[in-house]
């Protein structure tokens, strides 16, 4: 803890930490000193010269004009922001910047939330004294996400400092010199970084703007916004979705110091447009007849009651959702309970279920520290196991990049090289299912080469973290990583452990007290034992383990926000609002419970899925069950402080949940396969269900297909770009990519969600 000292700012004494950045001090205290190049995430630069103030080392010493961002607090320092000369100087800097800035505010997409506008007003620069021509530039095509308008540039260097220095992107630079500095790519082309959208926020003016947002004219002040949490992965970035009329126009990150701070990934930022799809559901549909949601609820409640009466309570089961809130999933159990059933399956396979539940229980036991995003940034050793962080939990990747920038060694054990591998100290490519063995070797100490290198680095680290994917259904790996972290964790040297998951609330449903394997439910549905399935926000018909069951089950109720394979074939469809219009609580990878809220938007459904379900339960006469519905009964959690999870409010930093039960014993590793093992390749763009439907994300998604290591391809006489028929060997065929970055013995299957082509069925009432 740094020493507390006193400084005087504009005549008022403030207590600050010695060495603190003066500009940040002032901003924290609500004094808005004009500034451009300074950004808290990137630190001071000293280039824009706007944050000037008169600073004296002591009251009896003469002050002089200094940049507050470049000045560190020392005892007795006197800072005069309102000094006459400093005020004049700041105005003069704005005058400089406005010499070449176009006066296009009325048509600029940044207008209304433009830092340059704000600073110009604050410094009271009103009169243009120059009479010379302005410089002009050609703009670049930067892909479907970010629009480029160089004439507005004020050369603050924020973009390159963010994109290159912070996010470690390689294709955006500062070119040229003097008053002709250009920020862009070497040539036109799609920005390569998965975090390019943050350029829009870091750019203080309208050089980088949201290409999707500007497509339909909207002013930022015309947007309706309720703070929410991103639904595109398990990181749980806080967001501000902006709606205009009936549509979601954009998503911006909402600051949350405990989670995503200032930034978010492109999948999250641009993945929300599924909300606007024409296949968005607004009416209920029962046996092909469109009706009001209320009427649909009546019909469904009656039908379910009828089945329960006819076939007994065991004839009804629920399929829970990893992308729906804790509340919605709890409401599903309430409906089932009202019908006398307790059969729910939230996962796609038993393997996924085991892995996620084990990981979530380890996390919630709080035996080991779970690093938050800011915590990950400070790690001095990172081991990433089993998955591709950039694709499966993008913002974890961005946090790891910060650790890498601070020279933390990064080790990756996974079947396939991803974006993060180029920053790794060492990567080990190994076939799926073999990772657990390697982790055990590391834990055992000794070993050689990679294993020894990791073990040695782990030993000397002061704040190590280990990250593990649960997206590939490897519970043995989850267990092995837990053992490794436990062995490395001591009182004076805590070892952080984080698991990440498939969907926004996987970690939440993984802590459900009641959850069974989908295979068991599928079997009973196929055998006819189960007559009715209530499917909550989930395209179960597209899941291999459940597709047949859905097709064969007598009565399927689908509750969702958009039309998909499941709603298409369902006996009854009940519409719910999409995530960004909905409310509830979800658990992110840390087991952080975060509440999100939403808005009622015309042209869509009116109820959250939790409300739809509670309405059904009510119709079933289960008001007692609803009254007594307690999170703690449904999920094995309380908050760390012992309070109920239900009390969390939107915009809080959330609360880490805690479970009283100890993690279950991990299953022993499956014997290593001697043949080829299939592995699902997740991509940042196109693999996650909801965001994949968003047009800009769909545009960036790679084609579906198969991947093989060059050796495996050669031994099968297959070559790159060919349509490979591996039906005999693996039951799949597809366009083959030969990838040297894929481990030998791995059949890579690209998970690319295809947009649902089925149009809304024309129905007549």
């Amino acid at each position, binding site marked *: 803890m740094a020493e507390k000292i006193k400084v005087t700012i504009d005549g008022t004494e403030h207590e600050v930490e010695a060495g603190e950045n003066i500009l940040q001090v002032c901003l924290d205290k609500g004094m808005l000193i004009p500034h451009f190049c300074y950004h808290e995430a990137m630190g001071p630069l000293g280039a824009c010269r706007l944050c000037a103030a008169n600073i004296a080392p002591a009251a009896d010493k003469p002050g002089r004009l200094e940049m507050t961002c470049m000045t560190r607090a020392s005892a007795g320092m006197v800072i005069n922001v309102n000094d006459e000369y400093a005020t004049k100087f700041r105005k003069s800097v704005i005058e*400089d910047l406005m010499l070449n800035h176009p006066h296009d505010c009325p048509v600029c997409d940044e207008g209304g939330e433009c830092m340059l506008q704000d600073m110009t007003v604050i410094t009271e620069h009103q009169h243009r004294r120059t009479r010379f021509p302005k410089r002009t530039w050609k703009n670049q095509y930067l892909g479907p996400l970010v629009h480029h308008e160089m004439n507005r540039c004020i050369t603050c260097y924020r973009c390159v400092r963010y994109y290159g220095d912070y996010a470690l992107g390689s294709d955006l630079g500062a070119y040229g010199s003097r008053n002709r*500095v250009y920020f862009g790519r070497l040539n036109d082309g799609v920005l390569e970084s998965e975090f390019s959208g943050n350029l829009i926020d870091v750019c203080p003016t309208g050089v980088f703007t949201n290409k999707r947002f500007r497509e339909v004219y909207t002013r930022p002040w015309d947007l309706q916004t309720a703070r929410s949490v991103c639904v595109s992965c398990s990181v749980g970035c806080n967001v501000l979705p902006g709606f205009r009329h009936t549509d979601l126009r954009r998503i911006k990150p909402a600051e949350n110091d405990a989670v995503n701070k200032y930034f978010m990934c492109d999948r999250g930022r641009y993945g929300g447009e599924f909300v606007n799809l024409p296949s968005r559901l607004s009416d209920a549909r029962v046996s092909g007849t469109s009706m009001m949601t209320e009427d649909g609820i009546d019909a469904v409640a009656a039908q379910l009651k009828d089945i329960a009466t006819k076939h007994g309570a065991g004839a009804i089961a629920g399929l829970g959702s990893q992308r729906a809130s804790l509340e919605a999933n709890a409401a599903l159990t309430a409906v089932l309970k009202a019908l006398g059933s307790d059969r729910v399956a939230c996962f796609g396979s038993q393997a996924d279920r085991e892995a996620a539940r084990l990981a979530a229980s380890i996390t919630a036991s709080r035996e080991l520290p779970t690093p938050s995003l800011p915590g990950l940034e400070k790690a001095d050793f990172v081991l990433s196991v089993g998955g591709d962080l950039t694709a499966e939990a993008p913002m974890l990747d961005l946090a790891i990049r910060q650790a890498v920038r601070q020279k933390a060694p990064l080790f990756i054990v996974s079947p396939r090289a991803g974006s993060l591998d180029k920053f790794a100290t060492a990567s080990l490519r190994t076939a799926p299912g073999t990772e657990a063995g390697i982790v055990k070797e590391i834990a055992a100490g000794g070993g050689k080469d990679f294993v020894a290198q990791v073990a040695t680095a782990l030993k000397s680290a002061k704040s190590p973290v280990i990250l593990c994917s649960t997206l590939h259904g490897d519970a043995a790996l989850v267990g092995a990583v837990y053992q490794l972290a436990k062995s490395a964790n001591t009182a004076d040297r805590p070892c952080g452990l984080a698991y990440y998951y498939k969907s926004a609330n996987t970690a939440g449903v993984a802590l459900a007290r009641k959850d069974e394997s989908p295979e068991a439910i599928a079997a009973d549905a196929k055998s006819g034992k189960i007559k009715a399935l209530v499917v909550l926000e989930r395209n179960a018909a597209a899941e291999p383990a459940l597709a047949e069951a859905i097709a064969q089950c007598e009565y399927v109720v689908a509750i969702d926000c958009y039309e998909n394979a499941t709603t298409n074939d369902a006996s009854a469809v009940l519409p719910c609002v999409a995530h960004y219009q909905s409310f509830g609580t979800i658990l992110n990878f840390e087991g952080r419970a975060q509440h999100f809220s939403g808005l009622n938007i015309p042209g869509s459904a009116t109820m959250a899925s939790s409300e739809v379900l509670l309405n059904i339960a009510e119709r079933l006469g289960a008001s007692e069950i609803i009254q007594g519905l307690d999170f703690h009964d449904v999920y094995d959690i309380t908050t760390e402080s012992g309070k109920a999870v239900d009390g969390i409010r939107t915009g809080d930093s959330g609360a880490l949940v805690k479970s009283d039960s100890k993690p279950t014993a991990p299953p022993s590793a499956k014997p290593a396969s001697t043949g080829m093992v299939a592995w699902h390749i997740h991509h940042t763009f196109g693999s996650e269900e909801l965001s994949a439907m968003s047009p800009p994300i769909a545009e960036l998604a790679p084609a579906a297909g198969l991947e093989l290591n060059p050796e495996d391809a050669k031994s099968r006489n297959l070559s790159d770009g060919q349509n490979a028929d591996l039906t005999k060997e693996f039951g799949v065929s597809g366009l083959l990519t030969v990838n040297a970055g894929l481990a030998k013995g791995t059949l890579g299957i690209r998970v690319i969600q295809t947009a649902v082509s089925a149009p809304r069925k024309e129905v007549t009432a």
Partner: protein
Amino acid sequence: MTTQKVLFKNIDTFKGVTPCSYEQYVKGGGYEGAKAAFKKTPHEVQQVIKDSNLRGRGGAGFPTGLKWSFVPMDNFKGQKYLICNCDEMEPGTFKDRALVYGDPHQLIEGMLIAAYALQMTKGFIFIRYEYKKGARILEEACAEAKKHGFLGKKLLGTDFEFELDVHLSAGRYICGEETALINSLEGKRANPRSKPPFPQIKGFLGQPTIVNNVETFCNMPHILAHGADWFKGLGLNGNAGTKIMGASGRVKNPGLWELPLGVPMRDILEKHAQGPSRGKAFKAVIPGGLSTPMMTPEQFDTPMDFDSIAKAGSRLGTAGLIVFDEGDCMVDSTANIMKFYARESCGFCTPCREGIPWILDIVRAIGAGNGEKDDMSILDDMSKHIMHTFCAFAPGAQGPFLSAITTFRSEFEAFIKSREAAAAGVN
């Protein structure tokens, strides 16, 4: 007053500069300074430099011994770097060219002494692109020095090693700023770095680094060979050493002369440069390369040393006099001067990047008869404004600019008035 030739012992710029060979150099006492240095401890060599009162010859005149004293020494085990700044691009300055083209071994010996004193085992000579031939001369001289045991490993019977590379710059005035030079040498855009940390602590590749000017290094062999007191005796009025002084512009005999530090400016103008070139009286002198404020004839008796010139309101800089006569239009000259700064600004910070081109636009407009009545007040504002930049580049530009619009304000005003008069139909 007789001038002892020290740095120019082997160089006669008026006869055409050819590189002094290794043999010639040694015959004239070359590498004796290095030999003397290696008989001392590194600390003792540093002390000699400190005692000599040698001040940096790159323009700022910072005491070399003091600059060196911040370099971590005994307990520091990492790599340290020695860099010679031969990015001579200051208009009106052409002394380093003569020193490099004329006597490359003198520079190498100076660097060897500094390297030993600071225990820096790797060095670079950062030379501007246009001195490509000089770079070749230096490379050849380095090979020769290596052959004779003055570069490489196990130097002069010690375990000390010194590896010296010649880096040919890709051309940019800002590279003369030491932190920009370091960035450039690292293969980056030559934007200056913030100080602190100072290069002595965290410089090239984050390691302790010293950057000294060519002429500064060239003095060292002589200081080590003859002692600090001898060096101090070379200058006038308590100034240490000689200085290569130059004159260009409106003088009859432009050139370079090695003169005692502290010689009156008038001596250079009238004795060495032989007075005005076209019979018109001198009007102004920029004393130390372009980035120093103008001085006027009544100040010509000012001694050419750091403190005296500073007292007269300018800076000694590189001691390359740029001379204007009564026939020169100061508006036109100011436009030329500001064009240089606008073109060479690195583009990093706002007042320099945007402010100087604006100044240039206004001065050009005034010169073209398009001045407006508020222009002088904008120029006054801007002359203060450009002082608060990230590095010393724009304050350097302010030197000649502010003195021009102050001293020769009537010329600017006359242009503006004549336009107003023309607009009003009066002539």
